[in-house]
């Protein structure tokens, strides 16, 4: 509640009422005509003057009483006015709301710090925010515990600067956080604040705390068994290098199907593969994977995985004029087989034209034939088939190799809206060495492009199936794409795109926005549906902020979507104090707060509101009482006009 309280003005108005009462109750000697003054004598004036003096004193005393009362109860307003006159900045208080703040004792300590900070600033305005990737306004009384999202301090500074730009005064920010090292962005310059004037960091950290994070994935290559790959990471809030023994256990229902002990030190990340786990006879191919031992952050100690890949797609590969290099075929086959996504089947042009049951094709075509693709291929696409065309330069006619960019150009354009979700892959390491200019066809859409304008991936809109062009020979000469993980990811996305006709991934991280196609529905792990079934044809953007196995419902089938935790949030290692000091420009040194400080008694802002609410009623009540007393006293003074009692 604002302390700027207009009711105090009523008190000021009431100040004038006693004056009016006294004014109207003044004793004028009424004038009246009389025939003659012959028998009259003037009254004794000293009696009247004495009586007037008494009234004036009474009036002054009562007015002073009322004035004092008004000033007393308007004190909060005066304080605020005084403070408002001295205000030189606006205070933001930002609470780190990322999942790592759920670590034992951190959130309680943060709440204590928040309350202490609000008390310290008194009635001064403190604008409270939470941050878990998005800066959101909050109130002290209703702030909730952190969720499962992650934080990036670069995003925090960017959003704070943007908000502070709209303020009329400089902004001082106090950030209560565990200052997680993993929340520091890759480009640390993003943490340099510009618009906000001052940043103070109050650290909350569990001293000597160790946390273990778990990631896992299950694959089945034969439809009978599954391999579960678990990644175990350990982090400590101190510099401990002690080794810890942990046990990873896989269960299905109440049955333990695998268990493995592992020794790990803080800061390490170890993988273990639990092989040949029999799949159940039912359609439920999910497993529970967990670390048996407890730690400070329980949320990342167990997860549920679903065995996928039991029915890999078949990708047919055709090469015109034997253009595909052996290396290219190896790269493609390796990528397709990764995680059992697909298998490769070599076919001939005759086979493609024979009408065999072929749905998806990877074709190696001479780059010269880009404008006039082989008829068998165009017919295949026109018939509804999907094709990925590798445009291979013909070495005999290629004279541009001498002009290639030796250093290579980075991928600078990534289509952010295409259903392939190319921006989810890391393209920063991909270099394109070709400098050959390319003119896209009108029906062609560039999806990936290097800094020197050479396209890497494009799609041509057709009346039939889907047609993509990869402008690379996949021999490692025109680009380093085949050696990058992004190549595997983009091939998997294409296989998924070709086979399922939707681009909903199997796994996403918590907090990530899911582009849910129309006529699909998502069921949360607790069984509640998300989103609405609409016929508008527009996809729905859903942010999934809880981990777990979600179910995607389509018209004819259903499949699983696993929302996993951000592994960075499992790392509870904090930024070094020196780094924190550098971040806040050494304006205010953050002080570590012990995790067991949660027992500190705090006073919430509600108490202040209650007191102010009472004042609103007390002032008019007292003022009215005083006026009533004044009126009563005027009527019962007991002093007559002639001065007698």
């Amino acid at each position, binding site marked *: 509640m604002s302390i700027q309280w207009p009711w105090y003005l009523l008190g000021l108005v009431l100040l004038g009422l006693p004056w009016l009462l006294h004014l109207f109750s003044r004793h004028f000697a009424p004038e009246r005509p009389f025939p*003659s003054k012959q028998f009259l004598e003037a009254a004794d004036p000293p009696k*009247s003057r004495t009586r007037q003096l008494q009234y004036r004193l009474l009036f002054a005393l009562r007015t002073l009483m009322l004035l004092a009362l008004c000033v007393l109860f308007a004190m909060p307003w005066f304080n605020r006015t005084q403070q408002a006159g001295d205000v030189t900045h606006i205070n933001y208080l930002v609470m780190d709301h990322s999942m790592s703040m759920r670590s034992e004792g951190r959130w309680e300590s943060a709440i204590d710090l928040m309350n202490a900070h609000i008390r310290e600033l008194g009635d001064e305005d403190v604008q409270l925010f939470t941050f878990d990737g998005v800066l959101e306004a909050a109130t002290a009384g209703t702030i909730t515990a952190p969720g499962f999202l992650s934080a990036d301090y670069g995003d925090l500074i960017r959003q704070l600067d943007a908000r502070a730009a709209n303020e009329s005064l400089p902004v001082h920010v106090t950030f209560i956080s565990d200052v997680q090292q993993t929340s520091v962005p890759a480009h640390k310059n993003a943490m340099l604040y510009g618009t906000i004037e001052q940043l103070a960091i109050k650290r909350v950290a569990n001293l000597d705390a160790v946390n273990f994070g778990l990631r896992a994935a299950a694959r089945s290559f034969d439809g009978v068994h599954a391999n579960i790959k678990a990644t175990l990471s350990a982090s400590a809030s101190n510099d401990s290098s002690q080794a810890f023994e942990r046990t990873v256990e896989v269960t299905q229902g109440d049955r333990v199907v695998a268990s493995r002990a592992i020794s790990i030190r803080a800061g390490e990340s170890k993988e273990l593969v639990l092989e040949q786990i029999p799949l159940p006879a039912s359609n439920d191919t999910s497993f529970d994977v967990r670390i048996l031992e407890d730690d400070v952050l329980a949320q990342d100690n167990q997860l549920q995985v679903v065995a996928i890949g039991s029915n890999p797609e078949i990708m047919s590969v055709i090469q015109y004029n034997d253009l595909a290099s052996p290396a290219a075929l190896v790269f493609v086959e390796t990528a397709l087989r990764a995680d059992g996504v697909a298998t490769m089947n070599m076919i001939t042009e005759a086979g493609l034209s024979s009408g065999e049951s072929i749905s998806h094709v990877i074709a190696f075509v001479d780059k010269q034939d880009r404008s006039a693709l082989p008829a068998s291929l165009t017919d295949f696409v026109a018939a509804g088939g999907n094709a990925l065309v590798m445009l291979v330069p013909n070495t005999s006619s290629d004279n541009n190799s001498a002009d290639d960019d030796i250093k290579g150009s980075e991928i600078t354009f990534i289509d952010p809206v295409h259903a392939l979700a190319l921006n989810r892959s890391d393209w920063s390491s991909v270099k394109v060495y070709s400098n050959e200019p390319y003119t896209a066809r009108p029906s062609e859409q560039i999806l990936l492009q290097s800094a020197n304008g050479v396209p890497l991936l494009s799609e041509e809109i057709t009346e039939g199936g889907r047609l993509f062009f990869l402008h690379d020979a996949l021999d490692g000469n025109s680009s380093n794409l085949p050696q990058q993980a992004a190549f595997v990811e983009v091939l998997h996305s294409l296989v998924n795109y070709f086979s399922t006709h939707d681009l909903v991934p199997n796994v996403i991280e918590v907090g990530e926005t899911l582009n849910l196609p129309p006529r699909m529905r998502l069921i949360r792990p607790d069984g509640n549906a998300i989103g609405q079934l609409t016929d508008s044809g527009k996809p729905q953007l859903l942010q999934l902020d809880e981990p777990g196995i979600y179910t995607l419902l389509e018209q004819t089938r259903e499949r699983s979507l696993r929302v996993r935790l951000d592994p960075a949030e499992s790392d509870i290692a904090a930024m070094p104090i020196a780094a924190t000091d550098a971040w806040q420009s050494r304006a205010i040194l953050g002080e570590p707060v012990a995790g067991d400080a949660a027992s500190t008694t705090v006073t919430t802002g509600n108490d202040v509101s209650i007191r102010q609410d009472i004042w609103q009623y007390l002032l008019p009540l007292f003022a009215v009482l005083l006026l009533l007393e004044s009126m009563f006293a005027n009527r019962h003074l007991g002093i007559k006009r002639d001065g007698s009692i």
Partner: protein
Amino acid sequence: MSKSANNYGRWLKPDVLARLGSLDLIARTVVDGVTHGMHRSPNFGHSQDFAEYRAYNDGDDLRFIDWNVYARSDKMFIKRYRGETNSAVNLLLDTSASMGYGEPISKLDYARYILASLAYMGHRQKDALGLITMDEGVSGQIEPTSRTDSLSRVLGLLDKSDAGKGTALATTIESLGVHLNRRGVVVLVSDLYGEASDIITALQTLTHLGHEIIIFRVLAAEEINPTVKSLSTLVDLETSEKVIVDPEFIKRGYKKSFGDHTEALEQGCRRLGIDLVTVQIDQALDDTLHQYIQFREQRAQ
């Protein structure tokens, strides 16, 4: 005063009469109301009614010698008649500012009703009517005359008389000796504000001239018993001076002063043989008129 007179008073309240407007009509209403039903006419002592014999002195008019008495007793006597002794009626009206006081009619209005009634009565008895109005001096005068239009002239002057400025009652009365050279009845209607001794002295001048004087002292009830409950400012109507008075003084001091003044006036009038009749403006006019008739009867005997 007879009981019947009191009964008439029920119909002749001054504030009721004031609605008649015309002084002539008011006078006739009062006089006719008073005389109606009386056993004896008030027209006494006038015309040729015998009053007394007096021995002839040198200088007396020979026409008034009763020759019959002279034939029987060889002595000469002068024969006198009542109607010849009080045939001039001089009406005096105080029009000082203090006479403008009173509600619902002022003392001056009441005084004019009295004088109009007396004039009407005198006119019916063939008296010579004269009127003098005065405030700080004589402001209007009609010489006593028995002409037929004397009544209308008197009423006309009364009608025009308004409350004037201050008062100088004693000096004005004292100066009237010049004007009132014909002995008769003098009727003074006033509130008699002024020093009592001065007023008595002035009236003595008139009595020495042989005038028979009757004074109607017209007062409002508020003057006799002022109702001042709080500290009040009283404004003198004659001087416009303001006097802040205490209710306690009104209760005690005022009444004593007023009583002393009234007593001094009454004593002086008794000593001079002047009839002083105090009337209140809320008193019925016929009551006042009866007092006048009583006065005339006493004088006639």
